[in-house]
C-alpha cells in the first residue's frame, strides 16, 4: 500500500550557481496504490516518474509533502519503509563480475537473511522467475531480459509487501515483456502492492488495475482504466492520456 500526498522536489541545475532557480522535478504528486493491485504511473519522459519513485524509496528526501509505504513514513521511518519495499530502479545495475545467483545472494545477505535462509530464498526466486538456465553464469554477458530478471529477483529477495518497478519493460522483447507481465500479475494476485512506471500506453492498459497519469511533475488524473476513459470522454487510453495532460487529441 502506497500513499503519496503533495510530494514536491526540486533540484539545483548541475553546474549552476546558487542564485539560479532550481528545476522543479515534482511539484504536486498525490496518489494511492492499493494491495493486491497493479498500479501504473504513466507519464511522458521527464514527467517526474523516477523522482517520485526515488522519493518513495527513501533514496531522496521530498522538499514538501509526505508519503507512506504500508503505513511507514518515508521521511521518518526510513528503515521500516525499505524493509517493506522492493525497488527495481530504471537500470538493472547488477554486478557484471558476479553470477546471477551471487547477485541475488549478495542482496539476501545484505538484507540480513541467514546463510541457510538466503540459499533457500535464492533458489525459490530462481524457480519463480525461471532463471535456472543462467543462474551460474557471470552476468557480464546477460541479455536485457536476463538482467531485468536478476534485478527483479533482487528486489524481491527480502519478501517485501510493496514492489516498485521503474520502467521494467524497457528494452525487453515481446516474449520477455509478456513473461514479466505474468510475473507482475501473479505478484499482485498474491496480495502484493505493485507500482509500475512506464511511458508505454499498451503496457499500462494491458497490466494495470489503477492508473495515475503524471505530467510536468503533477498527477493529472488517477483512476481505473475505465474511470479515466469516462472522465476524459475518450475511448482510447492514448487519447485519454493526451487530454488528461491538457492537450487536445
Amino acid at each position: 500500500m502506497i500513499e503519496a500526498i503533495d510530494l514536491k522536489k526540486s533540484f539545483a541545475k548541475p553546474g549552476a550557481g546558487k542564485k539560479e532557480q532550481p528545476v522543479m522535478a515534482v511539484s504536486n504528486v498525490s496518489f494511492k496504490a492499493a494491495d493486491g493491485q497493479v498500479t501504473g504511473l504513466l507519464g511522458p519522459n521527464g514527467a517526474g516518474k523516477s523522482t517520485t519513485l526515488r522519493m518513495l524509496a527513501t533514496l531522496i528526501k521530498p522538499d514538501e509533502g509526505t508519503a507512506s509505504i504500508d503505513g511507514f513514513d518515508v521521511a521518518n521511518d526510513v528503515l521500516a519503509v525499505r524493509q517493506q519495499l522492493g525497488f527495481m530502479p530504471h537500470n538493472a545495475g547488477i554486478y557484471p563480475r558476479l553470477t546471477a545467483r551471487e547477485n541475488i545472494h549478495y542482496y539476501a545477505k545484505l538484507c540480513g537473511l541467514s546463510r541457510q535462509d538466503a540459499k533457500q530464498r535464492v533458489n525459490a526466486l530462481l524457480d519463480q522467475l525461471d532463471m535456472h538456465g543462467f543462474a551460474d553464469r557471470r552476468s557480464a554477458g546477460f541479455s536485457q531480459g536476463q538482467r531485468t530478471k536478476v534485478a527483479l529477483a533482487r528486489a524481491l529477495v527480502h519478501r517485501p509487501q510493496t514492489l516498485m518497478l521503474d520502467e521494467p519493460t524497457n528494452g525487453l522483447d515481446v516474449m520477455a515483456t509478456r513473461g514479466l507481465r505474468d510475473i507482475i500479475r501473479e505478484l499482485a494476485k498474491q496480495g502484493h502492492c505493485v507500482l509500475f512506471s512506464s511511458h508505454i500506453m499498451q503496457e499500462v492498459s494491458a497490466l494495470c488495475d489503477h492508473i495515475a497519469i503524471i505530467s510536468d511533475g503533477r498527477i493529472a488524473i488517477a483512476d481505473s482504466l475505465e474511470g479515466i476513459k469516462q472522465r476524459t470522454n475518450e475511448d482510447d487510453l492514448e487519447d485519454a492520456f493526451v487530454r488528461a495532460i491538457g492537450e487536445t487529441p
Partner: protein
Amino acid sequence: MIKEIIDNLRDRQTVFYALLFGPVLLPLLLGGSIILSLKQLSIDFDKVQSLAVVNAEDAPNLMEFLYSNNIDIEAAPENPEKAVRDGDVPLVLKVMPGFNDAIRAAKPAPITLLINEGDKTSAKQSRRIRTLLQGYERTINALRLQHRGINPDIFNSLEITTEDTSLDGAGGQLLASLLPFLLIISMVMGGFYLAIDTTAGERERQSLEPLLGLPLKRQSLVLGKFGATMCFVGLSGILTALSVFVLFQFFPTDIIGGGLNFDAATITKAFLVASPLVAFISAVLITVSAFTRSSKEAQTYLGVLMAIPMAPFFILQFISIRSEIFTMPVPMLSQYQLLERIVLADETPALFVILSVLGTLFCAALLLALAIKLYSRDRILM
C-alpha cells in the same frame, strides 16, 4: 563486504595492483636499483682487479706495488684511447717515456690514466687506482726526503681523522626510509582500485540505486565498503612487508652499514606501527571516491592524492624534520619517522607510538564520518 572482495578478486586490474605491483614489483625496482648503485659506489680493495698498462716494463717498482695491492697487470690494447672510449677496457695506465729517469733524478715522473667518466665501472675503478697511485707517491716522497736527511713527517702538518658517528652509512638513511615509502605506496595502490570500484564504479554501473534502497543503514553500507578496502590495503601491506624482508636478505650488510635492521622482528614491529595507516588510507580512498561521480574522476583525484603519501619521503630526504611530540599525531609523517627509527634501531618511545596510533585512527574516523555523511545526501545518486 565479502561480495566486494570476491567481485574485485575477479577484477584483474585490482588484483594486479593490490597483490603484485605494490608488494613485489615496487620493492624489486627500487631496492634492486639501490643495491646496484650502492655496489657501484663502494670500492672493495680486497677484490682482485686487472689493469691494462702501457710500458709496464718501464716501471717495475710501481707494478710490484700495484700487484701487492691486488691489481693484476695486463698488457694494454693496441689503441688504448679508443679501447677505453668504447668500453673494451675500463681504464688504461700509461707509463710515459722517461718515467724511470725522472724517478731516479727525483723529478716528477709522468704517468697518464685513461678513464671514461661516462662509464660507471671506469669511474669507480679509476678512483681505486688513483688512491693506490697516491699511496705510492707518498711512499716515494717519504723515501726521497729520508734520503736527504729530512723527517718526512715535516710535510704532515695536520693529522686528520674522520670518524663517521652515524650507525648507518650514507645509504642507510635512504634505505631506512625505503621501508615506510614502499609500505605506504603499496597500501594506497592496493586499495585504490577497489575503493574506486565500490563507490564511483558502483555509481557508474548504476548499481548504487538499488543498493541504497535496501533495508540497510547508510553507515553499514559505508563500513562494509571500508572493510573490503581495508582487507585489500592490509593484504598489500603484509605482502610488501614480506617482500621487503626477503629482498633485504640479499643485501650485503657491509654495504648498507651495520646499523640497519631488516630482520623478521623489525619488519613485524614496523608493520604493526604502520598498521593504523590501513584504516587511514582506506578511509581516505573511500571518502574521496564518494565525492566523485565516475571512476575516471575518482582516478584523477586519487592520482593527485597519491602525491601525498610520497611527500614525506621526498621532503624528509631534503629537510630533516625531527621526530617530536607534535609530529607524531600526523598520519603518514609519523609513520615515516617511526619506521625509520625502527629500521635504524634507534629507540622508539612508547609515547610516540601511542600518539601516532591515536592521531591516525582519529583522522580515519573523521574521514569515515564524512563519507557516511556524503552517502546520506541526495546528491550521491545524481
